């Protein structure tokens, strides 16, 4: 018997995307929180099956967009009408029409950067390693034809033996306990 203290996660394989969706529903219903599904391609309906909440990324981008557009607009007002007033092509100092263009550009730039960085941070990226990479079965199939559910050891409901038998009971095959592997 393996030493259960070293177990990082339990991994189970499913045959088809549909099986994976049903498995996700059951794992979610069982009350597990720290689990994830892995497939070679996105599966429609997976978010609902896993009970995922909607990402807050849109709100983050929205707030940044409004703040940066307003900030850039105000910044141009301050530079051209307050700090260093300069008449350009006979226009008023506070030419808000012209400020719109740079405000728009900065809004797009900062929103895109927020969307990219926010996406990475919310996904816990970048990272150099993940415990699941200890599983040879996982690394061999997950980008090709394998559909996996993993439940991580720091889930409050986690118990190596019970979790393993639970995943077997919902139809998982090749259920394995993921343990650090010193060879690699």
């Amino acid at each position: 018997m393996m030493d259960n203290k070293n177990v990082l996660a339990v991994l189970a394989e499913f045959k088809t995307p549909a099986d994976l969706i049903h498995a996700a529903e059951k794992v979610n219903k069982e009350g597990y929180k720290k689990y994830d599904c892995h497939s070679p391609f996105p599966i429609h309906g997976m978010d609902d099956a896993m009970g995922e909440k909607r990402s807050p990324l849109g709100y983050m981008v929205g707030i940044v967009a409004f703040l940066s557009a307003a900030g850039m607009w105000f910044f141009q007002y301050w530079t051209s009408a307050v700090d260093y007033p300069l008449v350009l092509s006979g226009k008023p100092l506070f030419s808000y029409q012209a400020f719109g263009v740079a405000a728009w550009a900065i809004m797009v730039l900062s929103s895109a950067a927020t969307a990219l960085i926010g996406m990475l941070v919310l996904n816990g990226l970048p990272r150099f390693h993940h415990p699941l990479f200890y599983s040879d079965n996982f690394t061999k199939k997950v980008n090709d034809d394998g559909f996996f559910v993993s439940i991580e050891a720091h889930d409050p409901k986690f118990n190596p033996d019970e979790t393993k038998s639970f995943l077997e009971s919902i139809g998982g095959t090749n259920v394995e306990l993921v343990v650090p592997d010193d060879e690699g």
Partner: protein
Amino acid sequence: MSIDKTTYMISDKGSLGRNAMIVGALFLVISAAGWFMDSPQFFSSYLVAYIFWLTFALGGLFFTLVNHLFGSQWNIVMRRFTEATMYSFPLLAVLFIPILFGMHDLYHWTHEDVVANDAILTAKAGYLNVTFFTIRAAVYFTIWFFISRTLYNLSLKQDKNPDDKIILRMKQISAPGMILYALTSTFAAFDWLMSLEPHWFSTIYGLYVFAGSFLAVLCFVILFGLNLRKKGYLTDIFTVEHYHDLAKLVFSFIVFWGYMSFSQYFLIWYANIPEETIWYLVRWENGWYVISLIIIFGHFVFPFLGLLLRAAKRSFAWLKFLAIWILVMHYIDMFWLIKPALSHGNGPHFNWMDFTTLIGIGGLFIWNFWNNFTSNPILPIGERRLEASSKFKV
């Protein structure tokens, strides 16, 4: 009104079509009285109302073309809506005839004495003359009619004979059709609207009118779809997911419209050349600034904020309100494009003829739409992607 679940035909057409025709004809007769009382007022009102309804047909044609071209699935459940909308060019061609009679009142480049004393108009006379104008209008209507008829007939043929060759054929028609559409709709906007002020020109003008026309048909589909839904039709086929996508398109074209109008304004504001800025000046002085501001905030800022959130795009009540709002703004936008050119320094004024022509042409347009819509299955039942379309998820 009831529907046959296997053929998806509305078996009892109800009285909507007949009532719309009677109301439309009645209001056009009342408007015709205005023709004799005050013909400049009649023609300017008629042109605003005519262009307003024309944009629905042009938007419907674009929506159908672009979806065939991309082979998109999500819109198939509402394809009959846009097909019935675009198949109204014969009616619109007939309703264009009064504009030909009103050219003298509407377009001052038709006045020979004015042109003779004006170097710019003399130079433009090769393009802006009554004969060529009429020929061009005939060409536009012919092209629009043939593209829309071919696509509609292919779609109806598909109902009886589901064959993938038809899908390919629709694509083959749509590719050159899209190029012709872009050219004809741009030049129609130049001819019928921009030449009201023949000294002024803007190359983005056609896209500006196009942006409004696509918004018009999107709002029309939302309103008509919600109306059918309220009566219990297509509730599990034309779902909230489709409305969500329509709302996203409305949102993007609100932004596109804003982008076009700002681009036009910004270049003219920056260069500050009198012959260009005059166009905005007449839309600011004598009280027109009120309409200009209503358009900026009502046609862009409010719908933009109103459609930002996902929940807003999925709320039927809110979408219905916003669709009506945007259509009202679209009418005001067309009013703002046309009326200042003809008001000779007078402020904005809503005449009774503006109202009667709007209802008159609208009544006939709805009658024609309803006839098209109810004469055929309300879904393209021969389309093999229909099932996938109804299960579409955002």
